[in-house]
């Protein structure tokens, strides 16, 4: 089945992975800017990273017929360094006209600190000023509940934010309801061990229905599986769900959300 992975870190994957994803039905993907596993030392390092995301990765993906889109920011982990973060935020507009940029992301919180919150708000302001969509990273493990509530609080507080243009990722059983109730889109991140399994994601689809809900693989340099969405498709099929429902979650929803960005072109033509 053709699908879109709305959150996958291809800079940490091999070209063979692109080929595997194409064979499994991946027709488009979006790659938010994230942490590289180490803290970068200067704004120049981010400028090179953004060139990689906007120029190199789309070419690598195109070799296999996959559309590659991206989101730009300094991630929550490095946002602890406020002065570097401000330099990066000031530089981001240089890249906003690149043809594969969908918006600002993945911004969010990591340990829910004051510095992270400050930089989060400055990113939101940047997105609003440049009319960009927003992709949100919510913290992991014991920090997720608190951090997700803080993020929702900040977004709801800023009346300029159009909630239908914000995707809140890594939702789990204790955060999904509030995100959807507040009018945001929600993404479930499928991780083999520490986060959400395909079975639990299928449970959330059964409980909350497909509206404004999508799934992604994260596919980063940690233990993760870039082919997690096909695993979810299998799980949903095994449970007897209709092709229509599955396609809604793994293809039509990402298309509908991304289409609010002028750069997005539906990979299979408009439906």
């Amino acid at each position, binding site marked *: 089945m053709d699908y879109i992975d709305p959150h996958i870190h291809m800079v940490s994957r091999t070209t063979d992975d692109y080929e595997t994803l194409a064979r499994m039905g991946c027709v488009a993907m979006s790659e938010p800017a994230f942490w590289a596993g180490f803290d970068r030392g200067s704004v120049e390092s981010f400028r090179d990273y953004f060139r990689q995301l906007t120029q190199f990765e789309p070419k690598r993906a195109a070799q296999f017929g996959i559309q590659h889109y991206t989101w730009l920011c300094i991630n929550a982990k490095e946002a602890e360094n406020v002065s570097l973060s401000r330099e990066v935020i000031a530089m981001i507009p240089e890249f906003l006209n690149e043809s594969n940029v969908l918006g600002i992301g993945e911004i969010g919180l990591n340990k829910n600190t004051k510095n992270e919150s400050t930089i989060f708000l400055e990113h939101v302001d940047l997105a609003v000023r440049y009319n960009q969509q927003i992709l949100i990273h919510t913290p992991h493990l014991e920090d997720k509940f608190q951090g997700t509530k803080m993020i929702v609080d900040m977004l709801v507080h800023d009346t300029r934010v159009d909630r239908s243009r914000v995707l809140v990722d890594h939702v789990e059983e204790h955060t999904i309801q509030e995100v959807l109730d507040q009018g945001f889109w929600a993404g479930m991140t499928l991780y083999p061990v520490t986060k959400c399994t395909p079975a*639990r994601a299928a449970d959330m689809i059964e409980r909350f229905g497909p509206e404004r809900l999508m799934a992604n693989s994260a596919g980063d340099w940690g233990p993760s599986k870039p082919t997690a969405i096909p695993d979810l498709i299998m799980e949903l099929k095994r449970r007897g769900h209709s092709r229509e429902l599955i396609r809604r979650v793994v293809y039509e929803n990402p298309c509908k959300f991304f289409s609010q960005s002028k750069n997005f072109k539906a990979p299979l033509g408009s439906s």
Partner: protein
Amino acid sequence: MSNDPKPASRSAQKVLSEEFFLSRSKILDLAATLDRLDRAEGSVDELQQRQLLIQGIEILLDKNPDKAKRVQLLMSRPYDPDWRKNYGLH
């Protein structure tokens, strides 16, 4: 909204028969982990992580719904609605 494709539903009997072996293996994994902990030197009974595991297991055994959500909340730091004020943010 009304024309959203609806999730299919499975009978309880079907869910049980399809999920039984996986659940059995997960219970065994947990049982073996607790055995391993018992065999190891020293005591962790007072540690918060150990208590969280016990409290999590208690949620599995009670009669109330929303077990996954309640286990998640058990393992979560609390949210303070006054956090902005505490951080001096507006």
